[in-house]
């Protein structure tokens, strides 16, 4: 989070690189101040959803406007930005948001997780461990974890205030009673700092453990729903579970076809219409770095069988 100082050199660079007729990083300074205040409040109350005066952005609601507003209000000219969608830097929406900031803020962008000072993400946390000088900004569609149980905010606000989360556990219990296990596979609710139950945004539950005690600051922006929330560095984040049904994550019996990794989240790629498929890392940067270091996967797709999946 670099302040935009009055240094001549920087301001001239600013002028050269940013979009004519618009402020640095699109938003006007009053709006940025309002968002920063909401963000500070969010950091001070981990997991609590802070209402903010979300603006219309030139990208559609539901496409990352919350994350974009948070990023726009914290980004400085010295920042290096990485944007991922589904873990990958080269998906269209990630490319588009990166282009937006390159155009309106003229900042450096990178695909390399460790080089980024701000990482804006949709649906994933990078595989590489984040550091304490990094900020990860999540794009959040529905910030309210209780929404599917109680759609009314007048009610859910009270439930949060009273830490009244019994219904969440009842929901999990019913799930176990019905299927023998918890079937929520993404957007798996977490409890932050032993108080607020929070939506991790629709990351796969595979990524939930990465949130716990993460050295990086985690910010969550929900533009359409006008909420910001946060998890400060080194904060306890626990996925809801029961003693006899502990939280567990997805696993694959396959490894990545390109880099051979067996510890990363794998996407399934269908390669023909006869059931052949291959598995590849969803984190494209993680995969590329491994391949650069000489790791190799089995490559060619093969006939897929049901016993392959645990």
């Amino acid at each position: 989070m670099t302040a935009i100082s009055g240094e001549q050199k920087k301001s001239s660079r600013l002028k050269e690189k940013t979009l004519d007729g618009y402020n640095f990083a699109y938003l006007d300074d009053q709006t940025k101040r309002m968002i920063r205040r909401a963000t500070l409040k969010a950091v001070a109350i981990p997991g609590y959803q802070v209402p903010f005066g979300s603006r219309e952005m030139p990208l559609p609601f539901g496409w990352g406007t919350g994350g974009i507003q948070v990023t726009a209000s914290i980004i400085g000219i010295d920042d290096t930005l990485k944007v991922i969608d589904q873990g990958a830097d080269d998906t269209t929406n990630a490319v588009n948001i990166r282009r937006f900031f390159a155009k309106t803020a003229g900042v450096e962008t990178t695909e390399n997780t460790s080089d980024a000072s701000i990482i804006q993400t949709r649906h994933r946390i990078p595989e590489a461990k984040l550091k304490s000088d990094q900020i990860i900004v999540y794009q959040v569609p529905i910030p309210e974890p209780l929404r599917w149980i109680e759609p009314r905010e007048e009610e859910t606000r009270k439930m949060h205030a009273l830490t009244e989360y019994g219904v969440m556990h009842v929901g999990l219990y019913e799930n176990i009673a019905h299927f023998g296990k918890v079937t929520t596979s993404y957007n798996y609710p977490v409890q932050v700092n032993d108080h607020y139950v929070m939506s991790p945004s629709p990351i796969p539950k595979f990524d939930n453990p990465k949130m716990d005690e993460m050295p990086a600051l985690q910010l969550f922006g929900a533009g359409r729903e006008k909420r910001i929330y946060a998890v400060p560095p080194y904060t306890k984040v626990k996925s809801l579970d029961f003693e006899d049904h502990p939280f567990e994550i997805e696993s694959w019996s396959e490894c990545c076809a390109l880099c051979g990794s067996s510890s990363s989240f794998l996407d399934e790629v269908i390669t023909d219409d006869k059931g052949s498929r291959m598995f590849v890392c969803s984190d494209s940067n993680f995969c590329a770095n491994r391949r650069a270091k000489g790791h190799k996967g089995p490559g060619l797709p093969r006939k897929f069988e049901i016993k392959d999946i645990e």
Partner: protein
Amino acid sequence: MYVAVKGGDAAIENSQTLLAEERRGDRRVPELTLDQIKNQLSISVDRVMAEGSLYDRDLAALAIKQARGDIVEAIFLLRAYRTTLPRFGNTHPIDTAKMQIRRRISATFKDLPGGQILGPSFDYTHRLLDFSLVENSDSPVAEEASENILAEMPRVTELLDDEGLIEKEIDVNEQEPFDVTRNSLKFPASREARLQNLARGDEGFLLALAYSTQRGWGKTHPFAGEIRMGEVGVEIIPEELGFPIEVGEITVTECQMVNQFKGSATIPAQFTRGYGLTFGHNERKAMSMGILDRSLRSKELGEAINAPAQDEEFVLSHSCNVEASGFVQHLKLPHYVDFQSELVTVRALRKATTFSEKKEDSTGSKNVEGAE
């Protein structure tokens, strides 16, 4: 392979060039001008300004051209532009009593001071395609009336108010009004927040909900006390001057709905109000808004709440078409990480079921069931 949903700069740029080409259409046809849109698609311009929350005919016309006539997309363009504009202050409330009337009708009185003024309206046209418009033709020029319209047209609700027949409209707001464009809406919402939300809400959504409560899902079936459309002056009070100056003139449509009376043994019966106001000429929207404003007062007036149109959180949370359109269409974005998680879960569940089915088979329990 492995590129299906991945696309870089080049793909996006090509797509946008193609879009621009399709927007232009056949190059042998002259390109639309903003003047043409402003003048001949004026109702579209009005709607885009109203739901875009920005009164600027030129920008609205530009948005319509850029959006290829997609009105919701044009609204989005205007909103995204509006949000970058600095804000100088609040205007004085507009005074619709001083409106230069172009249309004014009441459904509650046959005749009334000021008269019924039909103005330009689709209402009594026969909806027959006019094939004379296929070729550009000389449109008729309307004749000017011999009589002047009243400079201060009395409001129907004021006539009722004189007798105490309708609830008083009380200005409760001494301080700065709530602004839905700058703050996150909270529930229960204040009336000003509700009216702002409805004023920029999607016309189709408001129309459908207003219709639903008229049909009995809720029970707001009011009288159109008055609808008026015309131009009003917009005034601000600059701090250094201390008195109001007019900064412009806007066209608005105002609708005052007169609703079922309310009363008790101790409170004399009175009609209640519902208020609608839109930029430009848009009676469908203004009337829907008037109905919903009243319908959403159910809680305040102690009525049973059992229909969507009475449910403030339901209506106000879903009225914005920029939000709705974005979120519905975000499903076009890749979801393959979440889908992969679901695949893993569903396959694991199916595998477990396959095992238990086999077990049942071996004990014969399945066959017994089958025999029944």
